[in-house]
Each structure stands twice: as structure tokens, then as C-alpha cells.
């Protein structure tokens, strides 16, 4: 069973602050996407880092 299969009562039984809409922010993709700081793990940050690295490697003559 996953969290999304729990109803409101089940969630409240875990913690009174938990509600079905709380699950919206428990999404893993949303979680990691929020950490888009420089050097961070978010896809957006990874894309930026990749662009920098790819440019460096292309300048060295590599095809990517």
C-alpha cells in the first residue's frame, strides 16, 4: 500500500497535520526539483552543470 491509498482518517492517525492535500508536496520529483541551487541535485541544476561540462568537453574535441 502506498501513501496515496490512505484516506484522510489514516493520514490523521499518523500525524494530525497530514491531510490528503499534503501528499501533493510529498512528491519525490517535486522534492528534488526544489533543490535547484548551484551544484544541487534538481534536474534544472543538473542540466546547467551538464551544459557547462559538455561545452568544456566539446572544446577538447569530443562529440557528445
Amino acid at each position, binding site marked *: 500500500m502506498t501513501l496515496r491509498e490512505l484516506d484522510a482518517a489514516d493520514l490523521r492517525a499518523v500525524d494530525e497535520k497530514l491531510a490528503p492535500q499534503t501528499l501533493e508536496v*510529498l512528491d519525490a520529483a517535486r*522534492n*528534488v526539483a526544489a533543490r535547484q541551487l548551484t551544484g544541487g541535485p534538481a534536474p534544472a541544476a*543538473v542540466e546547467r*552543470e*551538464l551544459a557547462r561540462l559538455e561545452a568544456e*568537453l566539446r572544446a577538447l574535441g569530443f562529440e557528445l
Partner: protein
Amino acid sequence: MPEGKPSGGRGARFAGAMDPAAAALNASIHFDRRLLRDDVRGSQAHARMLAAAGLITADDAEAIVTGLSRVAEEIETGKHPLDAALEDIHMNVETRLIQMVGEPGRRLHTARSRNDQVATDLRLYARRAALELVSAIDRARVALCRRARQHAHTIMPGYTHLQRAQVVTLGHHLLAYAEMLDRDRGRLVDAERRAAASPLGSGALAGTSLPIDRAATAADLGFAGPTHNSLDAVSDRDFAAEIAFACALLAVHLSRLGEELVLWSTTEFGFVRLGEGYCSGSSLMPQKRNPDIAELLRGKPGRAIGDVVALLTISKGLALAYNKDLQETQEPLYDAIDTARAALAVLPGLVDTLEFDVARPPVTRRWARRISLRSSCAPACRSGAHTRSSASSCGAPRRRA
């Protein structure tokens, strides 16, 4: 010494041959043979300089330069076998040159000692090897970069204490290794640059009174210039220690990747399946798919670290200038380079053929929710709404959240 028997580098001082056990201990041909190309190159530059300085004739220099190329070809193709009685590659090359071109060959060693000759050859070798490793590192970075591009959005667990900690992306994880390799690259480039000073002309320890042109040989051999102190030049092996250390740290970085691949490819993790070309099986347990190559990446640093320790220990406490102890610095340098080269050689293929199990529920969904739920911050704080590090968006101080 019987007439016609090679004398190695002993000169005319000795009437008898070296004790066989002593000669065996003294010999380095079994490992310094890899300096052949560099020795020939160094000698050719030296001969050209001697001619330009008027110390030998242009005809002699031509005979030497041409003859050395032929000697190298003969040795490389196995046409001329190396003779252990001649101690090292330098004496093997020179002896064969004299056999081949006669009297001009005897003039090659004018204004030169084996001490500055060996130091020059070793630097040429080390610089070449360092740059080859840099290229190998770049190929590995390309492989990591490609896989990171494919998985920039793939979610995976990030760990601390090997316990699931926060959500990261696989691309981010792979780029961590690209970062390590970038630093390794920088260390090798830096070490190569520092090794680019030519010891040639420093003689045994105190140069020569002959009017040689050290700047000319340095330029001919691609060095930035001649070294500034003859005593240091013949006895310095810092460049070897630096390159060996760069190799050891590189191997340490690859060992971390090796360890992760070993873990990730277990049934327990199940994050990745290694390419068949990088696994072994078992005749007794046919279900096995052993991550041998990843394990070797993990194990290789052991010897590379040992090489660094050997190099430093051999160099420690040596009085100036040259001492025979320095001969013992060659094998650790070669081994560290070979170890790093072998590990880097497998990396692009290993990384290219990794099959990440991105659809596996524990990787992408169930576990992610669990660690989201268990994070120290209140659920509302995980929306990405944080604007300050000192407090969570729900208003609770971070230390209490």
C-alpha cells in the same frame, strides 16, 4: 673482464666483472626498457646540440641520430634483443649504436652523465604518461556526462551513512564522479607542467665545462627550459611522486564508483545491472553475475597508494645529489601509471553499458515517499517554498522542525 664482454656503465676503472648476484640486483633493464623511446629522443637532441655547439661534427650527429632511430626500431621489433649484462636501457641503446655506426657512437656521451640522462628520460616518460592519462580521464568524463544527460531527471535515493537521506537525481550522482575526475585531471596537468624542466646538461651532479647549450636541448625535447640547479636536477623525483599521487587519488575516486556499482548491482539494491563484458560468472553457482571489474576498481588503489608510499620512502633522507636508491623510484611510478591507465581504460565501456533499473518501484516511488515523509522538516516545508536556511516555511525553527 673477458675481452668483448659488455662492461655496462662501469667504465675502464674495473678489471673484473661484477658479482652475478650484485649484477642482478643492480640491473634495471627489466623495467627501464620502457624508457627506450624517451632515451633515443633525448640522445638525438643531445647529439644535435653537440653538433651545433661544435663539440662533434655534423656528420657524426647525423650518424648518431639516424643510428639511434634504427636501434629503437630493432629493439622495438625484437630484432635486437636487450642484454641484461648491460644493466639498463641506456647502455643497451648506446652499445648497439656503437656497434652500428662505430666511432661517432662513442662521441654521443660527450658532456653527459647517465645521471642527467636518466633524469631526462624519466621526465620525458612521466610527462607523456601524464598527458595520456589526462586524455583517458577525458574519455571517462565523456561517458559519465552522456549517462548523466540521460538521467538528469531520474530520481534516486541519496545517502549519508549508507542510509537513505534525501532525494537526488541519478544525473547528479554520476556528475559527482565527473567532478572528482576533473580534479584528477587538474592534478596531472599541473604535475606535467612542473615536470617540464630539462635536467639534461646537469651531468653527474655538477654540469660540465664544455660549452653545451642546455636551452637548446630543453627546447628540442619540448621542455619549458633547463632546470636551475644541477644537484637538484639529477636527484629530484618530485615529479614522479606527484604523478604517482595523482594516479593514487584518481584510483581512490574510481574505487568509490566501483564500490557503489558493487552495491547497486546486488539483488538487495537492484539499482543497476552491469554489462556482461564487465562481469564474471561461476561454474558452481550459475546464477552468479559477479561484478569483478567494479571490485577491481575498488581494489586497485591499494597498490597505487603503496607506490606513492614507496616513492616517498625511497626519496626520504637521500643526501644530495644522485644515489642509486633513485633507481627504485622507477617501478612505483610505472606501476601507479599502469594501474591508473588500466582502471581508466575500462571506465567508458563500463559506464556506457550500465543498465539502470529506473522503473524499479523502490528506486523511484515507494522509497522516495518514505524518505520525504521522514525528513526532518514538516511536510509543508517540502513544497520547495523554503526561502531562508534558518527557519522552515511552517515557521518552526529548523532545529525544532
